[in-house]
Structure formats: structure tokens, C-alpha cells
């Protein structure tokens, strides 16, 4: 547990010292969403109709893009090799790094979401559920993405590769995240969808650190 905190604090400190990091992810999120009014045309009805989907897709892409570096810098400068050789269980390392990542990128993303919903003309009735769904969904994205981030260590073209592996696995989160918001907007109960999202979160919390640790371990065997 103290190790979890030590690693978490160090990663948070690295992120704060590097200043712009979490801001950058939010800005990507915003820009990606803003592209759509240009692409689809400015009609409010259409935009409102696709708002939840666009916001979720942009969140997926932002999460994936920021995850590329989750282990990469540590791998390149040799920190990961040393980290793997500490008397610390690797699952704890993965969990701490994912937590730090979510705190610095997932949270700001959630904070920015209502703003984008306004931009896209989404009905205000869906805001609360959108935030709740993002709060339940983005940690899953970070956890799933951590596996991919561990697998691409040492590969050529990590970024594109990561998207190929991770985006298909993100789809369940996308489906239930969007349907929760759509249900709320359509006047149905969003609870079942949110429950499924929670279930996905529990499953990824339980599984992903282990798989991620296994992936890290094999990345260091060479």
C-alpha cells in the first residue's frame, strides 16, 4: 500500500511538473468534438441527435491517445526495468500508474464534458447521466488501455498499433455509455445501463492489473 502511494505520488508529481499534460488531453477532447459541427454541418437537431455518441467517441480517442505514453517514457529511459526489479508486486505498479493516469486525464475530461454537450445542443436533461456514465466508464477505458500500453512497449509505430488493439475492446463501454445517456434523454431509466457500466468497471478493476502486469513482465524479458 505504501508502495502504491509512493508510485502514485511520483507519477502525479511528474505530471504536474510537466504542466500541460492533462490540459492537453482535454484540449484534444474538445477539438475532436468541435470537428463534428464542421464535418456534419451546423444543424442543431442532427448535432443534438449525435451529441452523446460524438462525446463518447472523442473520449475514447482522447483516452487512447493519452494512454500511449503510460509506460512508454518509463520504458525508454530504463525506469520500467528498475521498477520491475523492485520488491513491489507489479500489479500494484500497474494499478498505481493507471490511477495516476485517470486522475490527471480522466477527471479533467469528465469536467469538460458538459461544456461540449452544450456546444452540441444536447438536452440539459442528459448532463447528469452523461457525467455519471463518463465517471463510471473512463476508469474502465484507462484500465483496458493499460494492457495495450504495456503490449506496445518496444514496438515500431506504437500509437497506431495501440488504437488497433484497444479501440475494439473499448466498444462495450461505448455502447453502454451512450445508451445510458440516450435512455435519459428519451425519458427511460438509465439505471440498467449504468449498472452494466459499473459491472464492466468491476471486471476491469479485477482483471486488467493482472493482465497488464503479465504484459509488462514479458516486455522486460529480452
Amino acid at each position: 500500500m505504501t508502495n502504491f502511494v509512493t508510485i502514485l505520488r511520483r507519477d502525479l508529481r511528474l505530471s504536474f511538473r510537466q504542466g500541460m499534460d492533462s490540459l492537453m488531453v482535454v484540449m484534444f477532447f474538445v477539438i475532436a468534438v468541435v470537428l463534428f459541427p464542421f464535418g456534419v454541418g451546423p444543424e442543431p437537431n442532427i448535432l443534438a441527435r449525435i451529441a452523446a455518441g460524438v462525446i463518447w467517441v472523442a473520449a475514447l480517442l482522447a483516452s487512447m491517445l493519452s494512454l500511449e505514453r503510460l509506460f512508454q517514457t518509463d520504458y525508454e529511459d530504463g525506469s520500467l526495468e528498475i521498477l520491475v526489479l523492485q520488491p513491489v508486486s507489479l500489479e500494484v505498479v500497474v494499478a498505481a500508474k493507471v490511477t495516476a493516469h485517470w486522475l490527471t486525464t480522466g477527471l479533467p475530461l469528465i469536467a469538460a464534458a458538459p461544456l461540449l454537450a452544450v456546444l452540441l445542443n444536447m438536452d440539459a436533461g442528459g448532463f447528469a447521466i452523461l457525467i455519471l456514465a463518463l465517471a463510471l466508464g473512463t476508469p474502465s477505458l484507462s484500465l483496458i488501455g493499460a494492457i495495450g500500453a504495456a503490449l506496445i512497449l518496444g514496438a515500431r509505430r506504437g500509437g497506431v498499433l495501440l488504437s488497433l488493439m484497444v479501440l475494439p475492446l473499448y466498444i462495450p463501454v461505448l455502447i453502454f455509455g451512450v445508451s445510458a445517456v440516450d435512455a435519459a434523454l428519451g425519458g427511460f431509466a438509465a439505471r440498467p445501463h449504468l449498472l452494466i457500466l459499473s459491472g464492466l468497471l468491476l471486471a476491469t478493476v479485477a482483471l486488467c492489473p493482472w493482465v497488464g502486469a503479465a504484459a509488462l513482465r514479458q516486455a522486460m524479458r529480452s
Partner: protein
Amino acid sequence: MIHRFANPTRFLRLADRIQPWAAGLTVVLGGAGLYFALFSSPADYQQGETVRIMYIHVPSAWMALFCYTALAAACATALIWKHPLADLAARATAPIGACFTLLALATGSLWGKPMWGTWWVWDARLTSVLILFFLYLGYMALNGAFDDPERGQKASAILALVGFINVPIIKFSVDWWNTLHQPASVIKMGGPAIHPSMLTPLLLMAFAFKAYFVWVLLMRMRGEINAMKIRAVRLRQVHAAEATSADAGAATGEAR
């Protein structure tokens, strides 16, 4: 101890014996299957002649799932027992599986246009097969993305295992969600609910595809073994060059 380090002669001998049989079976079963599928089976009372697409669509879809299962099994073997042939088998399986998945998608689309009036719908069965296709491609891309092939094999093996959850999703998608797509009628509890005149070509084609799989798999594994050997020889050359340059240097040093 030596053959623990991947001396594949035994496997190659076995492959030599199986390969002609696999090739022969592919041709014979495939020929017979085509004959039944195109000439001697009746048109469906509902679907008309388009039912003939079933004889290639369904076996392709089965093979897509079968190949992924085989891929995952090979990857698990490689990760747990570290058998070097398992890595090669996985590498060789992936492109075959990807091709069958592509065929399932293409033939399904060509069947969907006359049956459902559209090339594509976003229902659970169809999209989960599309995701299966992406998983195959992701596996192959990750496998080839490293300068050291051993790293690529380990990393992509983990990906293949993680992606395996998609297989039950495909299988049961028609039961869990109501979709346009047909539920299972051949492989299900209580025996097949399909007329024998259609079952014959279907099974013939299915076995022909299996035989084709074995045939091409053995060919590709041969190639992968060669690639492994080429790499070993290359590394040896590099090492030998290092050693001889050291010897030569020492010799000239003495001469001086």
C-alpha cells in the same frame, strides 16, 4: 536436451506425411461440396436460390471462429509451456483466420442484400464478427511490429487471449440480443433442424474448409520455421564476423 530448443525435424516429418492428404481432401471434398451446393440441392422455399450462399457463408463463419479458438489455444500453449512450435502455429493461423473472417463478412453481405435489403446492418452478430476481423488484424500487426520476433510473439499472444472473450459473444449474440441474423440451427442442442439435402453440401464444404486450413497451415508453418532458421543463421553470421575480425586483428597485431 537439444530438441527442447526447437529442433523441428520431427514436426517436419509429420507435416510431410499429412500435407498431401490435406491437399487431396480439400480438392475432393471441395469438388463434391460444390457439386451438391450448386447442382444437386434444392432451392429454399423461403430464400429461393440465394440459399446457395449458405454453403459457403456458414462454413466460412465457422472457420473464422474455429481459427480464432485455435489461435488462442496456440498462444496459451506458447505462453504457459513455452513450446516454440506453438508460437509458429499461432503466427501461421492468424492470416488464415483473417481470410475466413473476411469471407464470412463478404458472403454475409452478399446474402444480406437480397434477404434483408441492405449490405450491412449494425446488429450484434455482424458487428461482433467485424470486431473479430479487427482482432485478427491487430494480432498480426502487433506480431510484426517488433525487431525481435520473440517479443512480438509474446505480446500478441497476450492480446489474442484477451480478445478471446469476443468468441462467445459472437456465438451467443443471436440468442442474447434479437437480431436479423439466423440463430444456430446446425450446431445446437437436440440435433440439427435443417433438411438433409441442405445438410450434405453444408457439411461437405465445412470439411473441405477444414482440410484447406490444415493444408495451408502446414505450408505456412514450414515457412515460419524457415524464417526462424534464417534469423538464426543471420545472427550467427554477425557473431562469426565479430569473432573472426577479433582473430584477424590479433594476428595483424602480432605481425606488427
